[in-house]
């Protein structure tokens, strides 16, 4: 028995070797082509970067010595040499990129050619009549195809890795760590080509004709990542209003299911502005899954080829079920986005007729083309129509499930803190045009802040999407995960939830980051001194020279103040004020920039620091400095939309005809009415109640949809003085505890409609 086995084995290997050699010989043109493309990819691109980096190094050496390139011939030559090598290297990289794409394409072509007997009848007789069994044939063919495609690819990577070591990346990018990333990209490309061979073999095992054998592996390769991303987009867009861009940036999983997806997924971390430790396929999560999928493709190809029936070669599909499945997948890819638009229209109560027509025409034309490729002569055209209709119906059904199921709960996925590299959040209030109603948590890698975000995220009720969207409140969260993908979520929440989340989001750390985020950025960019402070509130503006005030000093003061922050201080700041200031910053090595930030009256340390440097930072308003007062009442508003000029004009007896600007109002005549959403009147500035109201006033507009009162104080005593140039004024929102008094003043001074609405005007 043993003797027999040992006798058989060499024979089997001899046959394997013979068949493998024959197949390699057959693939010789492909091997040559792949070899040329491989040599023109990484080796060419990196090879040309070597002289470029050397030229850059030489030039920067001279530049660092302070040599004027226009005066010194050596420096001038060095710069020209660098520019020439730069042009050559860019050309080389473009050629390299094109060759890589072609290498990918030729991997597919070589695989299709290597398994010619799967779709060409003449080769069925030639290959299957040989004295070898199916296993030997499959293994030899697979090895031959891999040798013809992957070996040149590996050689080019090896040469590339050697060449990288000769490139001075410091001179090119100042980023040596990219070497490891570039190497990972090269191996991602290689892995995707191995997966491409597997997927193509699997697809070939279904196809019985040359046209199908070439077309369908290509289409499926594109369709898989496209469908995958679209499915995620539909779920995310429907649930959170996410965009296509957001959806794509979150689908690292496409790198697992298809070769094209693997290449695309490797660029997702870059799109998320992240240099990952490892590209997706080099992480256990995606790498193992991609490997498993690749093995599944090869294993499926093995069994499908083993059990396929050679007599069906020449038919479009060797397996009958594929007659429906493969065109079905292609049609699904086309129908998916259109069906999503149809459901979107239905949801919004709009007519989907246009999209329906688009769906019918596009899918039908595509289906007929696929039938023609399959050699159908349409003698039974009604069967084609029925198959198309069923395919579209199934596509629409799957889309509807995705659309209405919130991805079977995947929509409510909350990542673990440990998985998150960076996170940010926006908690929006009812009035997006009023800054105070929103709170932003800057993108941060601080674990405590990330935990606050994930905690808020976890506590958003699952039915949140169904809550009254008219609350106007929503929470927008974005995570960049450590694996390089992003998760973006937007939930509509009730006003109570909004208030609760704001309370949790406002912490010393988040407030500090929010307040000085831009300043920190400028500091990192070399700004170390605040040369001047411009304080701004309503129409009041003052500029103070604060030379000597360092950024560090200012940051220290803000940090100290931040310890006191609570949501009450920010959103229920009755009697407090906020102020926008602009800091003019100067850099150590010259240059300047300006940034704006918001400070509050309770920020004692910051205010005292600024005042110490002479900055005119506002506090309470001295009413006696003003010459006129106007009181405005808002009733059940949807936002504070008013025009100070109009209020002053109308109160001072100018009719609406004079103040109207038809263009401003879109051509409509302005009609003042006390039943409108706001009404007003001019108060006597000497009325002691005005000073009383000011005590409880602040610059912060209240977050309410109920009644609110606004006091406008001007330095001019009337409309003509105001438009004559003295436009200085302040807006003071009355505190709720003074509303009774405000109502009393309002009633006393309310401008009657008849005062401005003349019969001619109406």
């Amino acid at each position, binding site marked *: 028995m043993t003797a027999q086995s040992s006798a058989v084995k060499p*024979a*089997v290997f001899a*046959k394997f070797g*013979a*068949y493998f*050699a*024959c197949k390699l010989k057959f693939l010789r043109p492909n091997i040559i082509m792949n070899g040329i493309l491989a040599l023109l990819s990484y080796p060419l691109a990196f090879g040309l970067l070597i002289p470029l980096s050397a030229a850059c190094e030489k030039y920067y050496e001279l530049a660092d010595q302070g040599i004027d390139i226009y005066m010194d011939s050596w420096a001038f030559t060095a710069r020209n040499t660098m520019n020439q090598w730069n042009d050559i290297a860019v050309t080389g990289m473009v050629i390299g990129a094109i060759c890589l794409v072609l290498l990918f394409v030729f991997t597919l072509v070589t695989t299709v050619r290597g398994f010619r007997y799967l779709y060409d009848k*003449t*080769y*069925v*007789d*030639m290959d*299957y*009549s*040989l*004295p*070898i*069994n*199916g296993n*030997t044939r499959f293994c030899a063919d697979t090895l031959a195809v891999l040798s013809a495609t992957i070996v040149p690819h590996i050689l080019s990577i090896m040469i590339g890795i050697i060449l990288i070591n000769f490139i001075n990346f410091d001179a090119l990018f100042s980023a040596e760590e990219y070497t490891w990333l570039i190497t990972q990209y090269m191996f991602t490309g290689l892995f995707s080509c191995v997966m491409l061979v597997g997927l193509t073999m699997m697809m070939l095992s279904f196809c019985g004709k040359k046209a199908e054998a070439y077309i369908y592996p290509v289409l499926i390769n594109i369709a898989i990542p496209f469908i995958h991303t679209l499915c995620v987009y539909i779920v995310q867009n429907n649930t959170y209003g996410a965009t296509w861009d957001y959806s794509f940036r979150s689908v690292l999983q496409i790198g697992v299911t298809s070769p094209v997806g693997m290449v695309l997924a490797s660029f997702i971390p870059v799109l998320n502005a992240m240099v990952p430790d490892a590209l997706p396929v080099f992480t256990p999560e995606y790498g193992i899954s991609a490997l498993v999928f690749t093995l599944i493709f090869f294993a499926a190809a093995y069994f499908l080829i083993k059990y396929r*029936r*050679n*007599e*069906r070669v020449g*038919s479009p599909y060797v397996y009958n079920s594929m007659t429906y499945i493969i065109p079905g997948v292609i049609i699904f890819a086309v129908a998916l986005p259109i069906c999503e638009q149809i459901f979107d229209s239905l949801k919004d109560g709009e007519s989907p007729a246009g999209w329906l027509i688009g769906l019918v025409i596009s899918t039908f034309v595509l289906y007929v083309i696929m039938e023609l490729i399959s050699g159908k002569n349409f003698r039974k055209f009604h069967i084609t129509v029925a198959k198309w209709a069923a395919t579209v119906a199934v596509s629409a059904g799957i889309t509807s499930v995705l659309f209405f199921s919130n991805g079977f709960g995947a929509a409510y996925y909350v990542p673990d803190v440990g998985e998150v590299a960076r996170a940010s959040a926006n908690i929006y209030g009812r009035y997006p045009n009023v800054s105070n109603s929103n709170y932003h948590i800057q993108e941060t890698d601080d674990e405590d802040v990330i935990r606050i975000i994930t905690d808020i995220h976890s506590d958003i009720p699952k039915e949140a999407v169904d809550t009254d969207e008219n609350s106007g409140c929503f929470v927008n969260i974005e995570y960049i995960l450590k694996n390089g993908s992003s998760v973006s979520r937007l939930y509509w929440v009730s006003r109570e939830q909004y208030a609760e989340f704001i309370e949790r989001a406002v912490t010393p750390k988040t407030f500090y980051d929010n307040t000085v985020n831009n300043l920190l950025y400028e500091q990192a960019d070399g700004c170390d001194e605040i040369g001047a402070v411009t304080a701004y509130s309503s129409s009041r503006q003052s500029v103070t020279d604060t030379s000597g005030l360092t950024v560090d000093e200012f940051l220290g003061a803000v940090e100290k103040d931040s310890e006191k922050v609570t949501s009450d201080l920010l959103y229920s700041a009755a009697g407090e004020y906020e102020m926008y200031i602009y800091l003019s910053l100067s850099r150590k090595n010259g240059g300047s920039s300006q940034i704006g930030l918001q400070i509050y009256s309770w920020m004692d340390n910051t205010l005292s620091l600024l005042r110490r440097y002479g900055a005119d930072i506002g506090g309470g308003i001295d009413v006696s400095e003003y010459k006129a007062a106007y009181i405005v009442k808002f009733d059940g508003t949807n936002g504070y939309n008013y025009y100070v000029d109009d209020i002053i004009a109308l109160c001072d007896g100018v009719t609406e005809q004079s103040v109207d600007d038809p263009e401003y109002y879109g051509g409509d005549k302005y009609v003042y009415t006390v039943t409108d959403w706001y009404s007003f009147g001019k108060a006597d500035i000497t009325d002691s109640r005005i000073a009383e109201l000011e005590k409880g006033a602040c610059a912060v507009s209240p977050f309410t949809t109920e009644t609110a009162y606004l006091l406008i104080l001007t330095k001019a005593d009337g409309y003509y003085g105001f438009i004559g140039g003295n436009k200085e004024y302040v807006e003071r929102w009355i505190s709720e505890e003074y509303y009774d008094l405000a109502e009393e003043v309002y009633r006393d001074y309310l401008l009657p409609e008849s005062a401005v609405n003349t019969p001619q005007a109406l």
Partner: protein
Amino acid sequence: MIEVRNAVMRFDDKNALDGITLSVPEGCAYGLLGSNGAGKSTLLRLLSGIYRANSGEVRIDGEEVYDNASVKERVFFINDETVQFNNMTLTEMRDYYKRFYGSFSEELWQKLHSALELPLKKRLNTFSKGMKRQAAVICGIACRTPYLFLDEAFDGLDPTMRIIVKQMLIDAMVDNKLTVIFSSHNLGEIDEFCDRVGLLHNGKVVFDRELDSVKGSVFKIQTAFESPVTREQLSGVDILHMETSGSVVHIIARGDREAVRAAVEKFSPKLYDEIPLSLEEIFVYEMEVLGYDSSKLGG
């Protein structure tokens, strides 16, 4: 020994082979006859292990053929197309088969090649159809497999080449006890070359017998009667075809000659002559019985 039992080969909803059973003894030259689409090529592909039967058994020397490398090493199949070798030269084609068949004889190949004088270095796509066929045949014979299957083997060969190739096959059969199955529409060649024939029609075996037995069992009788005799009156005779021309009656009959003669002589014929039939005539009359006849052309 080749044995096929109840083999069914289904193409979509049609049975290309519908439960056929036949056997071919070793050293036999077997001719496969049949109308177009009868299933001859399909049967040869089954025997070569290219196709797998939907049901039934296909065995060579007692072993299943499909996906069995050791059996396939004893089989060489030359199909009716040769385009797959287009990119090879004759030398490359020889080397190709030499790698797979351990029994390949270089010496024999050289001998056969010298008889045909085919160009060695030219690609086969520059060869005529007949030259490609010769190339395939010499490779097949040089492989010295015990079984050689040829589909439309002599198609494209000129008369001289037919004789040469036939002689090569005969020599191989004598020298190597080669079992040959070949399908052809040229019944004269099968008549000359084969010692056993099988007739296929619509995927079924009409007969599978020794050629002599076939030829002996179907014959033509030329006879004349005093008074007209109808086909029904000759009900004891298996008549394939009957035609009356004046007083002379031509009958194509099947069965035992003596029994047929006794049945006809009951009607006291004035004339009784037995005329042997060619294989082609037998094929035509047999197929006519199966409803496959040239009279359809004229309506």
